[in-house]
């Protein structure tokens, strides 16, 4: 058992210490996740820290020292004014026209948030001033929701999240200003704010939630397609395997260690990509369920078998990499990893239909609840299993574990 664990460890260590391997198995999928999310989530337009924010005061403007709604608006106005000439302000504000219906304005700007054209919508409720005064005086009805400033944002959009974070800080500052004006500064009393997640509530899928499972599968795919035959053929070619075979280590034990190391690499890949997707782009998919975990494991094993299949066809490491390259592009881009593949021409759809990635990505997304799913559950499990069977059969007959004479 110790031998198996150490073979697995060797597989992991080598991947981390060899820069080329590290790039392909970790940095490349992370890079792709960042680039695709930035392109398709609308973040990154302009590349500055200017956020477009809509603000609307639903109440009447009363004027005077207790018009706190006007105070909130003025603070945002200041944030939308350049601090010095030529410098871009923090916010670009969008406000309703004087005669515009405010509810219609909110609806329109919420849509802009969904589309990624706007970072957030700030709504000051109609009786904000009155409720706030009662709250400060301690005579309110106790319903905290009435004097909330509502901020609508899209959790899948990193720009939207950053803007919301800044808005919350601004509102916290306003709170202190209001309490100072009323002579009741109390650190315990905040203006409550509430955040409504627009992406999920609307039923529209944030792109990062669609993309993240695909990128994770792509990582597994690249590791299997290139990493497995690369490692085996290199070790065979350099007679590293032969050195193992003159010890009591048997081929099944070596295979068990190798497979364990491969799955370990996939686990590492998963965590790096998940953390990036979750914390940088606000991905909200929940992988901690039995069905997604089983699909991820199925994906990892499918591409491990694919790797053995390629290794069995190649006589040298270079030949193995050439075969992997030939299979790489059509399989990666015609497997529904990055975009839906339903509308492709018939010729391309043939590749889609025999591609195990199609079924794995469909099944994984279905199990995560981010897609209704194109194929039935038996298909999404059965087709990858059939590929595993075919690859293992071919590899068991053809794969040579030692250099030929």
């Amino acid at each position, binding site marked *: 058992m110790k031998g198996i664990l150490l073979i697995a460890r*060797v597989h992991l260590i080598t991947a981390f*210490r060899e820069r080329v391997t590290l790039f392909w198995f970790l940095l490349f999928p992370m890079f792709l996740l960042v680039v695709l999310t930035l392109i398709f989530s609308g973040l990154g337009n302009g590349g500055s820290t200017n956020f477009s924010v809509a603000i609307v005061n639903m109440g009447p403007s009363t004027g005077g020292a207790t018009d706190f709604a006007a105070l909130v608006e003025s603070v945002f106005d200041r944030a939308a004014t350049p601090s010095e000439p030529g410098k871009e302000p923090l916010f670009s504000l969008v406000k309703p026209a004087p005669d515009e219906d405010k509810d219609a304005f909110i609806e329109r700007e919420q849509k802009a948030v969904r589309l990624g054209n706007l970072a957030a919508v700030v709504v000051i409720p109609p009786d904000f001033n009155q409720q706030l005064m009662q709250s400060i005086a301690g005579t309110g009805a106790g319903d905290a929701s009435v004097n909330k400033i509502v901020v609508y944002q899209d959790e899948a959009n990193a720009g939207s999240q950053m803007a919301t974070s800044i808005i919350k800080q601004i509102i916290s500052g306003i709170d202190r200003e209001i309490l100072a004006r009323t002579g009741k500064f109390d650190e315990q009393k905040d203006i409550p704010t509430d955040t409504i997640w627009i992406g999920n509530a609307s039923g529209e899928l944030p792109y990062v939630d669609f993309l993240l499972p695909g990128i994770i599968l792509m990582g597994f795919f690249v590791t299997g397609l290139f990493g497995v035959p690369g490692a085996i053929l290199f070790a065979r070619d350099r*007679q*590293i395997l032969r050195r*193992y075979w003159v010890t009591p280590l048997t081929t099944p034990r070596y295979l068990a260690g190798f497979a364990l190391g491969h799955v370990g690499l996939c686990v590492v890949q998963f965590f790096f990509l998940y953390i990036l997707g979750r914390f940088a782009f606000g991905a909200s998919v929940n992988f901690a369920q039995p069905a997604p975990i089983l699909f991820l494991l199925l994906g990892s094993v499918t591409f491990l078998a694919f790797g053995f299949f390629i290794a069995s066809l190649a006589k040298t490491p270079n030949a193995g990499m050439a075969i992997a390259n030939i299979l790489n592009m059509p399989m990666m881009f015609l497997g529904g990893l990055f975009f839906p593949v339903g509308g492709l021409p018939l010729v391309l759809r043939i590749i889609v239909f025999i591609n195990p990635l199609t079924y794995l990505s469909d099944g994984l997304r279905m199990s995560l609840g981010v897609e209704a799913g194109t194929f039935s559950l038996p298909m999404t499990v059965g087709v990858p299993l059939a590929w595993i069977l075919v690859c293992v059969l071919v590899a068991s007959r053809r794969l040579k574990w030692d250099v030929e004479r």
Partner: protein
Amino acid sequence: MKHYGEVCAVDGISFFIRRASVFTILGPNGAGKTTTLEILEGIREPDAGEIEVFGTRVRRVDRTVKERMGVLLQEANFEPYLKVKEVLHLFASFFKHPLSVDSILDKIALAEKANAHVKTLSGGQKQRLALGAALVNDPDLVFLDEPTTGLDPQARRNIWSIIADLKAQEKAIVLTTHYMEEAEALSDYVCIMDHGKIIAEGSPQELSARLGQETIIEFTAGALSSEALVPLAEGCKSARMDGELVTVETEDLISTMEHLLAWAKGHGLELKNMVVRQPNLEDVFLSLTGRRIRE
């Protein structure tokens, strides 16, 4: 016996390897040395024949035998990004009763390189690591396939010293080498192979004695025609030319030397790099096959 297609790589050979001895297989490339070793190491199965090892007859060496066996392959490679100690830990994990990695590092004098990556080691250090991996299970039977090929004289001496220690620990050692001086310095028993067969065997002294009381004279004399050698050959047992090197075999050194000097003077030749020595294993092979081992 072992065939590769039509080629018979090993053809009906039989020998014994004793404890506390170095058994050396000598022969030119393609003689069948490596195939013989691969069969003994369990890499290949013979087409016919059996191996009796540690008192048990087997067709192919199994795990039980491998537990007591250490192997240094001709091309000793390890994963380049592993550290020296990681390689030894890995190989130790394959055996039931391994030695401690620290004791192996001391034995192969690589303790200070324990944390170095394999790819940063010199040729001699890599070979010592390979030897360490072969000794990690404290084997009773050790196979060393050309352990010093490509190493500098100092690195070669280091390996020789480790082999001498192994012999002192009563290990049975099977060695193949291209270096005659290595075979003569280390071997207790030599088996000379050619075309898959054993053509001579015995201790280095016994094999050299086969050439009788001969003395070898070697020198270089610039470009010579083969006709020019004919008068020289008349005054000795044999005279051969290999490039610029002339080798003369004689059983009467004094009269041959007189004859040689007269021949050189007559042809106006300047004799350079002259060596007078007793026959070695190369001469034995040459006398048996008419070829040099390295040809």
